[in-house]
């Protein structure tokens, strides 16, 4: 099934941006921000193109793995793998990171000017692109990892640059926010690491790929698998910011510089969903099944809580951050059903969310640029006449979240809901009723905050403060956003590209009856 590649093309495509990014601070002295953005874009395009071309090759669709590039006395060998499960994630990350790089140029130019205006001296834009590119490449490496230790290393490698991006270019009380973000996610990461180490020490391997024949050495007690699974899962759930351990997210995602929010919010936390399946489920199938009902409840709670909180926000970016929590609830919901439809939907929803949420964050960013730091929804209104294209794009972004055609969101939500109902039916009538109610409430909530926000920003009367503003209607910012949205819409037309292989892949893994 999995083809062994003779040449480590995936590795090279990840490492190239990761390592070359170090040159950005030096390039930054010679090149203008726009050229820097293009260099960064090209660097990040490399993994995207590689992944797309591998995935589009029919013979490689079942999965392609690099030759191991690194081996360690006890951590085993590291490699990179693209298979139907990692493909939607890799593609979503590649797409969003590459395009947001283009968006970054004008946004960060504005942001740095703004900070200098406040009397601050942020590091140069070259440093920004270095951190940005590292962050993006590390996320890509994360999704393609084949070794648990490798996964952890990329996890931390993604964490560090994002921490510095927040602390240097963020808004508000950025130092506190950044430390909170760092510590919370680091705790999650360490929990994950401890679980992984306990796992590795009892099974003797850290390799994700060759796990079919693993046996637990019960030297550490018969409860070991469930404890280890719980540690790994809780570590991932902290990173995913589900209800209860979500405290850090609204701060971090709302206060990060907008292009970074556009990556953090959908991409980084969603990867935990991937890891839940790839690591928690595949390695600990029976134990994961035992807790799947709890996860289901947690998912519903997260979904509704995120939606409620989003409704109550006035700050546009904070609203989007809470909406991310809510969408994480959806992804977790899909996964926790452990039905083929649910999991497929969950995986697909990562892509939906990545595209939709990055569009929305970029819109928020372009509003900030165009209206000089405007973030409060209460002070907006009637902007559709001033920025009609932005308004359209916002609408599309929200359509992704709500799951209305012509967006990919339709398919992912559909699959999640079908999967959840499958599961709920298997659980009995009462559960079916309860879960259906939750689903309806959740979906209604998403629709409510989406359209309510849309109305408050773009319709109604323009406040006097904004009335005199003259705005460039079509800027680079909107062009990039539009590009992302177009890809998202195109995927609506051909979702089978990802869905079919995913179903083939997940079929044998998941239990036949929910």
């Amino acid at each position: 099934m999995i083809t062994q590649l003779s040449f480590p093309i995936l590795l090279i495509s990840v490492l190239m941006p990761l390592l070359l990014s170090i040159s950005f601070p030096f390039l930054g002295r010679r090149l203008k921000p726009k050229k820097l953005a293009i260099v960064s874009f090209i660097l990040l395009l490399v993994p995207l193109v590689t992944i797309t071309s591998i995935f589009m090759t029919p013979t490689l669709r079942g999965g392609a793995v690099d030759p191991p590039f690194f081996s360690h006395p006890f951590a085993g060998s590291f490699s990179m793998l693209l298979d139907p499960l990692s493909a939607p994630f890799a593609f979503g990350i590649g797409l969003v990171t590459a395009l947001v790089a283009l968006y970054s140029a004008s946004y960060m130019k504005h942001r740095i000017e703004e900070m200098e205006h406040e009397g601050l001296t942020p590091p140069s834009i070259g440093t920004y692109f270095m951190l940005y590119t590292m962050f993006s490449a590390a996320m890509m490496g994360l999704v393609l990892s084949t070794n648990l230790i490798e996964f952890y290393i990329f996890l931390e490698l993604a964490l560090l640059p994002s921490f510095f991006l927040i602390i240097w270019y963020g808004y508000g009380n950025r130092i506190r926010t950044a430390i909170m973000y760092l510590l919370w996610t680091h705790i999650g990461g360490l929990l994950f690491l401890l679980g992984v180490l306990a796992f590795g020490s009892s099974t003797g391997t850290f390799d994700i790929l060759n796990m079919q024949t693993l046996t637990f050495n019960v030297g550490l007690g018969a409860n070991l698998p469930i404890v280890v699974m719980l540690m790994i899962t809780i570590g991932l759930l902290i990173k995913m910011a589900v209800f209860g351990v979500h405290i850090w997210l609204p701060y971090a995602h709302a206060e990060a510089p907008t292009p970074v929010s556009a990556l953090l919010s959908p991409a980084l936390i969603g990867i935990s969903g991937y890891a839940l399946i790839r690591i928690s489920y595949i390695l600990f199938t029976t134990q994961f099944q035992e807790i799947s009902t709890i996860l289901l409840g947690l998912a519903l709670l997260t979904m509704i809580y995120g939606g409620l909180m989003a409704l109550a926000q006035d700050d546009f970016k904070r609203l989007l951050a809470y909406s991310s929590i809510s969408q994480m609830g959806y992804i977790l919901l899909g996964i926790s059903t452990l039905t083929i439809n649910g999991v497929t939907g969950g995986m697909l929803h990562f892509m939906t969310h990545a595209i939709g949420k990055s569009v929305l964050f970029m819109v928020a960013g372009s509003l900030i640029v165009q209206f000089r730091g405007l973030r409060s929804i209460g002070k907006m209104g009637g902007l559709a006449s001033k920025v009609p294209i932005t308004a359209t794009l916002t609408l599309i972004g929200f359509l992704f979240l709500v799951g209305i055609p012509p967006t990919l969101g339709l398919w992912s939500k559909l699959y999640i809901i079908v999967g959840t109902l499958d599961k709920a039916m298997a659980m009995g009538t009462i559960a079916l009723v309860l879960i259906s109610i939750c689903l309806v409430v959740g979906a209604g909530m998403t629709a409510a905050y989406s359209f309510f926000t849309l109305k408050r920003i773009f319709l109604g009367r323009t406040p006097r403060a904004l009335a005199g503003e003259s705005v460039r209607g079509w800027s680079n910012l909107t062009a990039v956003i539009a590009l992302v949205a177009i890809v998202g819409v195109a995927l609506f037309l051909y979702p089978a590209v990802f869905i079919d292989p995913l179903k083939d892949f997940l079929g044998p893994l998941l239990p036949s009856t929910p």
Partner: protein
Amino acid sequence: MAGAFLTPLVDVLAKRMNHPRARDYFALAVTVGTLLLVVDMATSVLGGDILVYKLGGWAPPLGINLAVDGLGLLVGLIVAGISTLVVIYSFVFMRQESGLGQYYTLMLLLTAGMMGVAFTGDIFNLYVFFEIMAISSYALVAFRRSKISIEGAIKYLIVGSLGTSFILLGIALLYGSTGTLNIADIASKLAVINTTSGSTPLISIIALTLFVVGFGIKVGMIPFHAWLPDAYQAAPSPISAIMAGGTAIVGVGALLRVSYFIFGAPMVGPLLIGLGLVTMVLGAFMALVQRDLKRLLAYSGISQMGYILLSIGLGTALGITGGLFHMLNNAVYKSLLFLAVGAIIYRVKTSRIDELGGLGRKMPITAGIFLVGALALAGMPPFNGFASKLTIFLAGIDAGYPILSGIAAIISVVTLAYMIRAFIAVFLGPQTGRFENVKEAPRSMLFPMMVLAAVCVVLGVLPQLGFSAVEPAQEVLLNPSSYIGEVIPGA
């Protein structure tokens, strides 16, 4: 080959040097020479040999001998490397001071003492070299003769000589029960005593306690740590660096040599685990509340020492490897951090965290290097601290103490918290007007820091290098009989 062992003695000769111009370069030449000789020995020791040099031609166990095994080599390598870099760093850093002849003399004496402790095969010589090291470090801490340096030195001296007295008493007890001073010989004779009597005699337990307390004082193990932050804060920064990266490591090396060799792992293990745990936890929390950068680093050094002891106390191959690797890494990034703080003090004249701020713009290279050290200390990939902490966590789980790994991981978060807090407070944030004219540190100070930072990255990306460096040391600790056999044929 014999010449290699005499390097410490060559260093002592340097005492005579007082020509002001040549002095710097002489000190450098001596340390580089030492380093080269150690590297030269490394090739054969890594091959599995144990080099034994018999002073005066007397055969052990009667004569005094130097023996280089994996452990000695590892410690010697660290010491020689760090001393060389610190000497380079001192050229500029100490330029304004008077009495530099004494400074370099003491520094070389300190190095000689450390090398001697690393290489000696005789427990009394270990004591003598330990005293050489201790006396020169007391004097170096007091070097500036300012209020704090005198105070720090006095505290260090009183507590330190208590420690060395304990060590001497322990040696006396061991001599009383075995009648020999050669480490290998003591070990084999004690083993015989233990097997014949069926249990460990009380006198060995007392001796072990004395050693643990004595060396524990030297490495700053809690509850014997009180002198350490004062001394580190009071000493000139290069000396803090050499103490954190050299003296403390030598102390651990000596503790391991004495305890593991002579008493065997099963007896020492639980003790080390217990003390290591306490040291690790309390050190980290004390570091969290410090207001002075050098004190913060001192406490974090205590905390890291806890990791090392904990891991080695596990007694498994993986645990010892992890502990020794962490010891190597700790020496690298801790001296790096002290040197970086020294660069700040050199330019800004203060190391109080609340007085500093916004230095990142003015001293970007120092900031970057400090960051590398801080992240390595906190165990973040891709720096070396990650590789060794990972090994330690894994070793804890492997040895059946997952709870220890859990605590170690929590402390690792605390470490990250205080290091990041320090980094932010010093390099980020608003600039105060006082620092308008601050410039980047001079090149000859940056160079050693860059070398250490590069080592951090290289050992982080290619941990195999570190593992192969500690492998012989780990074998020696795990299986002391080969060392014993090598030193005393037929024992």
